[in-house]
């Protein structure tokens, strides 16, 4: 889901950086409005590191294996800390592994980070309706995970396909490319949703406080 360097034109990269700067500024403002913003910083930082490490876990998806993104869960747990956290995580990935890119840091943060914030709001909806149960939390976890990755895929495919250095040979081919890429990522929605759901249920059992956010 990361777009590497070298593909996108500078206009898109610059736009990505501008959007990221704006969302980061807004996130930091929301963080500073909290009662004790400093208390959240170690929590958010260590969870950032933890998500970074957890994304290294291979999930077998025959014939290959995938690495999870888990931006939905990250958003659910970190709230407005999620966007800076994702930006930092992407920066480390680019710097330590060459995964993703530097010129595309802004656009990748938008791809991963905006859906994470949305996931935070989706996950909060589980408080509505009164009844509190592991199944309900698990269901909202699935929703948050799947929706976040779904939107990420949509933005990713959209930006990539419309900004390649050449035009497709026909509009049909372009559409086909979009559909193929999107469909290829569909199983990912199911897996991320499922794993997010399982994680939420685990966390609820072991350390419910973590689900109430940083």
């Amino acid at each position, binding site marked *: 889901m990361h777009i590497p360097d070298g593909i996108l034109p500078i206009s898109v990269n610059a736009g990505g950086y501008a959007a990221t700067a704006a969302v980061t500024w807004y996130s930091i403002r929301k963080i500073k409005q909290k009662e004790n913003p400093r208390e959240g910083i170690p929590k958010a930082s260590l969870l950032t590191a933890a998500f970074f490490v957890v994304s290294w876990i291979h999930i077998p998806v025959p014939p290959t294996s995938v690495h999870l993104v888990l931006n939905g869960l990250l958003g659910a747990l970190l709230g407005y800390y999620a966007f800076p956290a994702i930006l930092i995580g992407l920066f480390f990935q680019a710097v330590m592994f060459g995964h993703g890119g530097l010129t595309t840091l802004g656009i990748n943060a938008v791809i991963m980070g905006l859906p994470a914030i949305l996931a935070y709001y989706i996950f909060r909806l589980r408080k509505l309706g009164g009844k509190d149960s592991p199944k309900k939390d698990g269901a909202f976890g699935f929703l948050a995970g799947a929706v976040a990755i779904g939107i990420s895929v949509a933005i990713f495919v959209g930006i990539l396909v419309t900004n390649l250095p050449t*035009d497709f040979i026909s509009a049909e081919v372009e559409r086909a490319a979009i559909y193929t890429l999107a469909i290829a990522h569909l199983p990912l929605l199911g897996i991320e949703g499922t794993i997010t759901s*399982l994680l939420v249920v685990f966390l609820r059992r072991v350390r419910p406080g973590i689900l109430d956010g940083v």
Partner: protein
Amino acid sequence: MNLGLDEYINLDSPFHRWEARYKLIGLITLIFAFSFVRDLRMLLAMVSVTVAIYVISRLPASFVLRRLRFPSFFLLALVLTLPFLSGQTVVLSIGPLDVHREGLLAVLLIAIRFISILTIALVLFATTPLLTTIKAMRALGLPSIMADMALLALRYIQEIGQDLKKIQTSMRLRGFRKRRLSLYGLRTLAWLGGSILVHSYERSEWVYKAMILRGYGHAPHPRAEFQSCHRDVVTLGIFLLIAAGFITGDILFGHGVSALLQ
């Protein structure tokens, strides 16, 4: 756990000696200048500058080759699809598939830009400790919340990575094998990930206590003092000129400002 970055920070080269803030500005500007380039004739200049920079940095060739391994899959996917799917001029036909000139050239452009940017980025980040780079970013205006989070995360990535390895080893020793996709397997992996998250969350509560016990937030934290000299400024000037050269050259070679708008 070796994250591979600190290996070569103790070498000696002009890049190792270049002060972190100036190096950040200079090389990031060059990277963006590279991403601006669309003209194929500029690619030769790009490759030459990149190779020269890498050689001067004294980083070994094996380092950059190792770095290129993983991201190459994405490139490979583009190489295998773009020439067939995009472009107007057919140069070759392989069975029912046509290979287009524009697609091939696009792939060339992407590949060279990508490899050049990755190489320059490697010189930027592998010649200074990452924590110094983050402090330099803070000195250049990165919000302190971001810098604090980045430094804390950096500190604990290693530990948490080791925790992951230990738990994975214990799982393997008790017979867990990731072969097929199954709900049991997914649940086990979720428990693995969940344990890591909970350990980290609980550790963060202790870290917060340790921080406030030593006065976190009590006094404004002093910015790291960077000492620069004339050579740092001059080197920055040179790199800004090179970057400007690429941008100007690309515009002059015919794409003009419309290149900005794709």
